[in-house]
């Protein structure tokens, strides 16, 4: 428990710093960068009053000093107010994000779990069968790992959607199908639309888990207790299980490094597929210079990534008895 007591303030501090960065980014821009962004936003909103309010929000012609603005920024955040989206004026940023978030959580969550299980499993196998043809998987997966997610998405669309016609591309569901909820046809349709984006994310991210697990497994297999287990004549599965469950710990604690990459990559994948999640909304925000929406998405995703890290820390606590004993 002591570990969590140490981790919680860290995440709280990171959260505060993320918000502070979010506050300062537009204000630290050189010269007229912010003016240009706001001018574009003003033309979308078509209302001089709204533009003036926005300028004031970003500290232009605002009599209140920076500390006051910072306090106001926090106050509105704590009231759940992330501002008004300028590209879909006058919808609040929170409701734009709320519409998109479930799509992303479902897609990225499922794809991450699949790729973690798949990658870790293959990593164990490759380590155990070291020196066989399985070693040649490494350079291949390296290629998939190095390729940008969105490039793999391009390929998936051209190959599986256009050439072979196996799956639909674009959007999250059939636009002509007005069913919602859990009607069987609708669920199948949604899964059908999620197949290619999920495949892209799994292919691109499984390699990372695989290489990490392989390297840890190789190191663990050299430990004396594994050798003894083998020497005692334990069944091979059991020996692998002993080694693997110790080797997996760094994978869990390395989660923090990976999850940020996976989420960022998944957001870009959504853009290629016009998938109705946060990534696509982010793209719209970027091309429309929708400053409040960009900032809101940064905050929401940062919070989500921090939460995922906290969960990984919990998992580590459960998986590794040593962390509990030391407390």
């Amino acid at each position, binding site marked *: 428990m002591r570990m969590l007591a140490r981790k919680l303030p860290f995440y709280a501090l990171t959260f505060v710093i*993320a918000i502070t960065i979010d506050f300062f980014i537009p204000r630290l821009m050189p010269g007229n960068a912010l003016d240009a962004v706001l001018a574009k936003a003003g033309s979308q909103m078509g209302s001089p009053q709204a533009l003036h309010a926005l300028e004031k929000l970003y500290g232009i012609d605002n009599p209140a000093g920076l500390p006051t603005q910072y306090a106001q920024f926090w106050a509105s955040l704590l009231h759940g107010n992330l501002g008004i989206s300028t590209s879909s004026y006058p919808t609040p940023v929170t409701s734009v994000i709320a519409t998109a978030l479930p799509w992303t959580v479902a897609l990225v969550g499922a794809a991450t779990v699949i790729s973690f299980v798949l990658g870790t499993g293959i990593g164990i196998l490759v380590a155990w069968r070291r020196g066989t043809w399985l070693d040649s998987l490494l350079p291949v997966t390296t290629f998939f790992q190095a390729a940008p997610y969105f490039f793999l*998405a391009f390929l998936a669309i051209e190959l599986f959607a256009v050439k072979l016609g196996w799956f639909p591309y674009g959007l999250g569901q059939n636009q002509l199908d007005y069913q919602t909820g859990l009607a069987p046809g609708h669920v199948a349709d949604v899964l059908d639309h999620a197949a290619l984006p999920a495949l892209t994310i799994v292919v691109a991210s499984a390699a990372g888990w695989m290489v990490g697990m392989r390297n840890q497994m190789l*190191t663990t297999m050299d430990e004396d207790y594994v050798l003894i287990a083998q020497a005692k004549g334990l069944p091979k599965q059991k020996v692998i299980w002993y080694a693997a469950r110790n080797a997996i710990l760094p994978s869990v604690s390395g989660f923090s490094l990976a999850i940020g990459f996976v989420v960022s990559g998944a957001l870009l994948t959504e853009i290629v597929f016009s998938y109705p999640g946060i990534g696509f909304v982010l793209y719209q925000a970027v091309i429309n210079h929708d400053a409040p929406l960009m900032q809101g998405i940064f905050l929401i995703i940062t919070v989500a990534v921090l939460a995922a890290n906290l969960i990984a820390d919990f998992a580590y606590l459960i998986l590794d008895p040593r962390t509990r004993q030391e407390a």
Partner: protein
Amino acid sequence: MAVSTTEPAAVAAGTAAPLRAPRLKLPRSPKVLIGLGLLIAFLLLAVIGPLIAPYNPSADLAASGTPQPPSAAHWLGTTQTQQDVLSQLLAGGRSTIVVAFLAGVVATVIAVVVGVTAGYLGGLADDLLSLLANIFLVMPALLLLIVIFGFLPASSDDLLIGAIIALTGWAWGARVLRAQTLSLRNRDFVESARITGESTTRIIGWEIVPNLLPIIASSFLFTVLYGVGTYTAIAYLGLVNIDPHWSWGGMLFWAQSVNAQVNGYWWWYIPPGLAVALLGTALALLNFGIDEFINPRLRSAGLTRRRARQAGIPARFPLGVTPVVRLPAAPTARLTPGAEQVDTR
């Protein structure tokens, strides 16, 4: 763990003079050689690419509005506005590679300064610097970059872009370097340098950093890899200048803007995507080599069944990760050419 002055492989190979400083000696596995070859090819491309581009990458060469597939005049076809894809690919390599390497250099310098200082000084400085690194590590970096570049006017300044990318990419290296410095700090040779009264800067610069070289190299390659990926992503989103300032991510932006992947214009998006993937693969393969140098247990190349049989190792060696140990008789008696290779790597 890393390199000590008595690196056994170097001594066994008989190439290094006894008192020579430790060198970064990569295992000569196919992985490393392919990686190195690819990387040199890409660096060459960065230098001469824009010069050998057959057309002006931004020039509209004809009036027709549909992308043309590869032909004798345009080896990689043309884009929507009849620009030459090959010329864009050749011209775009320079910016992509320059930004990635700049990001790598800047981030590695920050990582070394922060990581080694934190590890060597310890105490409050360590706590604060580690905290800083950990915060940057958990924050979704690409998203932060998207927001920063979203507010900046579309830039074509490679140095600025590289520096901003570096700001989000140094933390991982700093963490690894800190951990390694911690383990070096109390070694005898550092201790004796301290007792003889050498200054802290000299100890860090002459005793510690040379022993961190493989890890610094690995973290540099990792950051360059990160720079390639993030710069491509940012250019793909159109957040930097992408027309006169060509990059591979920018090409993907234009391809995406007319749905090249749906319309089957594969010659337009496959070359830049493949180039990014190959550059990334080259860096990752080299990194494998350095990983295997740092941690010899990870070596697998050269340890195929055939080689193992030649070395007299039983065909099944699920636990035989260090084959030298498993040689049944005295190694000198059984050295065959194959075994020598396994031995001295």
